[in-house]
């Protein structure tokens, strides 16, 4: 295979993208662990967040080897969408968004949470934190690359 290692203008940029990739991969495997190994039911909103999260594993990987700065555009769109859905989900669980705005009808209510790490970290909160962290990493990667 003809593999050329193009370098970003700033070497730290690659590391930031790589860190973002590690984060999405750990989150993807983590969410699969919850649903497939532990058997936690997956609600509709969780699926929407998965739809935004899972492609990032491949998109970021392809952008890393060889390095392609355009990966930022593609991954930012997924991250932004995922972040918005995660925020909605967190507000719903917290009860800030009213019952009537609830999009989940089939058997598994989205306002119900199953896992509480350290007493307060439920899955929607983890998701929001992860999307936020990816956003921050991508933001700094962009700043370094353009400066």
């Amino acid at each position: 295979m003809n593999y050329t290692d193009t370098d970003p203008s700033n070497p730290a940029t690659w590391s930031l993208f790589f860190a973002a990739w590690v984060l999405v991969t750990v989150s993807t495997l983590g969410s699969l662990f919850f649903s497939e190994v532990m058997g936690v039911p997956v609600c509709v909103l969780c699926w929407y967040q998965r739809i935004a999260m899972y492609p990032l594993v491949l998109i970021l990987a392809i952008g890393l080897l060889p390095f392609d700065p355009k990966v930022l555009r593609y991954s930012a769109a997924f991250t932004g969408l995922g972040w918005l859905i995660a925020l909605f989900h967190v507000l719903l669980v917290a009860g800030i968004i009213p019952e009537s705005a609830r999009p989940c009808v089939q058997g598994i209510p989205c306002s119900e949470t199953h896992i509480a790490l350290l007493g307060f970290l439920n899955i929607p909160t983890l998701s929001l934190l992860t999307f936020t962290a990816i956003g921050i990493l991508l933001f700094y990667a962009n700043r370094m690359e353009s400066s």
Partner: protein
Amino acid sequence: MNKKTIFISVTGILLLAFVLAAAIYKNFQGASGGRNQSVVERQSAPVKGPDEAKVTIVEFFDPACGTCADFYPLVKQLIDQYPGKVRVMMRYAPLHTGSDEVVKMLEAAHLQGKFFPALELLFNNQQRWIVNHVSQPTRARGILNGMALDHEKMATDMNSPDVSQAVQQDVADGQALNVKATPDFFVNGKPLPSFGYQQLSQLVKNAVEDSY
């Protein structure tokens, strides 16, 4: 170390961690098997098969669940396969929207000794009373109206505290046993190692060998 090597090693480490964690978790779950019999069984729940059978399959089911309908003949077959040795106890897990009303009808039919005919009627006509995975209690009632039942008594029983208490007990025990999908089986208190007819049949075979 070049970037490609870093990338591939990290991928390998993450996948390995996932597989290991899954194996450890499954192992841990398996060790905690053999549940409290008083949570798994409810004395007054509908039972098919002889009372003196030493092997009890407890099935948590939703009348609106397609897989439950598919499993029903297979479970009956297990009872016939070990005559006098195996019985099945049916417990309600109304996970579909609207099913909570339908299981009350089944419990009311059970009070008249007609649980299994009512269940078979509902299972065989699922497409007539379930729309987009949502149970339509009025339609289910319409189907049950065709049965030879004391319908007046059924209407009263459906809303009686005894019936809703039986259903609530099943729902509470289902939650305690971590029933998140239907059908879910327990054979003499033991959960299936993984879902499937083969696994159920094996678990029943082992239980029969242990008990007789």
